[in-house]
């Protein structure tokens, strides 16, 4: 019995893989298992290769991914060619026997570089470039086990049984994948039925057909191949779990946090969050309304942030959600929010950059940008989250801080988190606090930028006040003022908020250190590096090395004192930045703020997540003296 299984499910974009992953996640969750699943796909709507990399655990909610996997389920030949090296010895590959004679050199969707590598690989081994020849080789040399199914035949049987046309039948291709996972893991059909019912609520026929194929395929697999990766019963012990993507959990948090206005311009990987929010716009629970949520698609990102700031001036909690190219356009208005001390939250999902970069891939290369974006100086909060639950609480924190300090808040997430599905315990709503800062509703001669208090009172437009605001330097009323001494006072008032926030925001919201006594090597990272780093700490124990991890969460105000107190205990050569960017940006900020150099780095910028296996290998290389290790695993 296994306590952890990892799976790869691959196939062309647009063929139902995403919903397979959702169904499998919910099915496993139904049985109490923890899930973590990453989705990798091209910037393409249909036809290019995509895959799900999923970790299922009976002991915990998995927080990272690693290679090799036990099971690869391939919807097409491209998947086999792309991933055969990702499967462990003795692992299983499920494939379509009708593709046996397919050649890697003739699949048009395979990118030229991979095609070249495959060619080189095959020619080195003296193989022909067919699936058949590859299988033969893997079976004999790598001891991989193969489950060959005739997908077209299965689909045609379905068509006949339910009298579907071929187009309709092909939509069930992904269920063959689900069915084979069910067959190979012994996942209970009840659980799958539950998952289908939840995923396709109300579409009874669809559920039925799917369930039929899944059962049919799983039987075929079980009986025909007799391979079983049986998971031990779950020991996690939760009655309920949340199963959600990062995008979705942020949407839920915004609703809990009292969001009333979200503006956005579509962009990957942020747009799904707004879509989810829109489905909840009525804020209704059992027919009763808790308010209204305006979700508005604007003509561009400038309009998105400007209208969010406008809404905030009217007195609602407001946010916009975007990714790099969109944020680049928001920069001018960000500075305006800073200057007029307007609360606003920007949920920022990083993706492969620069420029259009890798729109559907991950990265963490926008940190320094967010810290200094927009001309001039003004206080801002830059807050990042390392996993789904952090993202939940941080989203609400972001809303609170923006209103409490009258500052723009940039909540930094990334594509890895946005698009990965994870099980988590339900967030503890009863621990959530809403802090709207100090407001005033009635005041003659209201001074919006009152210099007599460190954080000025805010009034809603439409309350019993009159207020002005200007991006120009202004007086206490908000009128333009060019007087040099007023300039100094206003400037200092704004900038002092950085110190105030630094003194008031608890350091545990800003930074966490994981590590016991005797730590030899400290990883310094942030965002979705967290999961891999924590699992690497465990894995490094096998090498007899105690590692630690400093998880940076808030970069502005930077937790200088706390970071200093931790890192100054170590020698610079025992500090290693682990980041999804080239420059090791967070470590630059550590140096800038504390003077402490982080001398080593492990970085990855292929657009794929950091896997525990490669991180562990890299840590060992660092221990052997390497200063910089660049990771590149993953298709």
């Amino acid at each position, binding site marked *: 019995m296994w306590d952890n299984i990892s799976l790869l499910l691959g196939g062309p974009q647009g063929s139902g893989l995403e919903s397979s992953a959702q169904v499998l996640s919910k099915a496993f*969750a*139904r*049985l109490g298992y923890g899930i973590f699943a990453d989705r990798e796909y091209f910037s393409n709507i249909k036809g290019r290769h995509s895959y799900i990399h999923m970790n299922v655990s009976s002991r915990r909610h998995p927080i990272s991914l690693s290679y090799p996997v036990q099971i690869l389920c391939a919807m097409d030949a491209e998947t086999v060619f792309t991933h055969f090296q990702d499967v462990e010895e003795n692992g299983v590959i499920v494939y379509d026997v009708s593709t046996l004679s397919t050649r890697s050199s003739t699949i048009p969707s395979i990118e030229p570089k991979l095609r070249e590598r495959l060619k080189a690989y095959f020619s080195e081994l003296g193989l022909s470039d067919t699936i058949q020849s590859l299988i033969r080789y893997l079976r004999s040399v790598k001891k991989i086990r193969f489950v060959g199914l005739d997908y077209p035949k299965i689909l045609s049987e379905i068509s006949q049984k339910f009298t579907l046309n071929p187009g309709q039948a092909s939509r069930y291709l992904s269920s063959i994948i689900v069915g084979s996972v069910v067959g190979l893991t012994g996942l209970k059909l009840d659980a799958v039925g*539950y998952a289908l019912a*939840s995923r396709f609520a109300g579409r009874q026929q669809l559920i039925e057909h799917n369930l039929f194929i899944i059962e049919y395929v799983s039987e075929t697999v079980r009986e025909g191949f007799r391979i079983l990766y049986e998971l031990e*019963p*779950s020991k996690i012990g939760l009655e*309920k779990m*949340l*199963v*959600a993507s990062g995008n979705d959990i942020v949407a*839920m948090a915004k*609703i809990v946090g*009292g969001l*009333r*206005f979200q503006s956005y311009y579509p962009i990957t990987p942020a747009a799904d969050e707004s879509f989810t929010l829109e489905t*909840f*716009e*009525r*804020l209704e*629970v059992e027919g009763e*309304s*808790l*308010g*209204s*949520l*305006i979700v*508005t698609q*604007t003509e*561009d990102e*400038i*309009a998105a942030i400007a*209208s969010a*700031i*406008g*809404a*905030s001036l*009217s*007195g*609602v909690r*407001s946010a916009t959600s975007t990714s790099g190219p969109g944020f680049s356009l928001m920069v001018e*208005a960000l500075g305006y929010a800073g200057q007029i001390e307007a609360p606003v939250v920007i949920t920022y999902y990083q993706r492969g950059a620069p420029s259009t970069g890798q729109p559907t891939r991950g990265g963490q290369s926008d940190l320094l940008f967010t810290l200094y974006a927009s001309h001039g100086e003004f206080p801002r909060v830059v807050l990042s989250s390392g996993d789904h639950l952090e993202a939940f609480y941080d989203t*609400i924190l972001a809303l609170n801080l923006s209103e409490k300090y009258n500052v723009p808040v940039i909540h930094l997430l990334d594509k890895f988190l946005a698009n990965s599905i994870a099980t988590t315990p*339900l*967030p503890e*709503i*009863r621990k*959530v606090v*809403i*802090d709207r800062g100090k407001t005033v509703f009635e005041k003659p001669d209201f001074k919006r930028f009152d210099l007599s208090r460190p954080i000025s009172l805010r009034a*809603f*437009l*439409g309350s*019993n*006040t*009159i*207020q*002005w*605001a200007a991006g120009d330097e202004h007086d206490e009323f908000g009128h*333009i003022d060019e007087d040099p001494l007023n300039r100094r006072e206003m400037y200092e008032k704004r900038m002092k908020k950085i110190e105030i926030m630094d003194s008031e925001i608890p350091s545990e919201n800003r930074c966490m250190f994981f590590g016991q006594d005797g730590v030899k090597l400290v990883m310094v990272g942030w965002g979705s590096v967290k999961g891999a780093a924590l699992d690497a700490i465990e894995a490094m124990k096998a090498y007899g090395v105690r590692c630690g991890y400093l998880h940076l969460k808030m970069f502005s105000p930077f937790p200088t004192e706390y970071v200093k107190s931790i890192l100054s205990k170590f020698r610079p050569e025992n500090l290693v930045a682990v980041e999804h960017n080239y420059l090791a940006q967070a470590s630059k900020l550590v140096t800038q703020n504390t003077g402490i150099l982080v001398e080593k780095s492990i970085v990855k910028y292929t657009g794929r997540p950091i896997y525990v296996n490669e991180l562990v290998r890299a840590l060992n290389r660092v221990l052997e003296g390497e200063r910089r290790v660049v990771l590149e695993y993953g298709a």
Partner: protein
Amino acid sequence: MVRSPNDYRTDVWVDWCPGCGNYGILAALYKAFAELQLDPTNTVIVSGIGCSGKTPHFVKVNGIHTLHGRAIVFATGIKLANPTLTVLVHGGDGDLLGIGLGHFIALGRKNLDIKVMLHDNRVYGLTKGQASPTLSKGLKTKSLAQPNILSSLNPIALALVSGYTFVARGYSMLSEHLKNLIVAAIKHKGSAFIDILQPCVTYNDIHTPEYYRKRVYFLEEEGWSPKVEEGNEIDKMFNAIRKSFEVERIPIGIFYQNTFKQTLEESYGQRIPSYLKTLPPWQKILKDDGSPIFDDTLFEKMFNEYIVKVEKS
């Protein structure tokens, strides 16, 4: 208390050039506000950057002086979050038809109840007189190094094609007439646009008061009927477009008004019944103890679809 035009004045010094057309606009605004007895706390002027952008500081209602070209989109958020506010946008021709052109047109698509006042002086005033998008090709105003090389836009036609439901032109030196247009625009429900001919005495030596005096005439005097009646929407629009291309004589007045189109607020209200019932800013989001209105139970109900009940084994 009855408010007089003077009650809408702030004591900020008006630092426009002596003789600037903006003074006429400001005077019309004060008068319009007084005529409508607008509640200053419930009225918002949103402006861009330019000489025109300074307007809010001179008016004692809420004033949000935003970024160059972006007044409309800030106003959009302000209005959507609180649809009972009276929201006016004041911008220059560079502001609204140069850098902000995309937003100007997008507002037509929305028919959100915002009133856009274009201070149309055909130059970039505050940056010292460059050609603006309403300056015709070949003209060389005072501070251009070369005659204008780009063709001009027709703001009225653009507004009509974009979907504005109230489209008018006024002239800053005819302040009473302009006041009437502003009043009508504010009373109109939906996106309203007034192209205000505004002499810039410092940089525009072509479109002077003299120039306009000779050309301006009143649409009303020609028996123009701008109002759409059931069924003649398209015809009314075409006629108005055509009219807007007159250049030798310049018509002022209301070109077009359509009261049949739903505003964006109404559309949202239809979709989300509670939106217009309790305005978003006054909706409760937390309890007195600082906890959210959500509790664990409400959370589970609302997000049921994301929650998996683990099967007892």
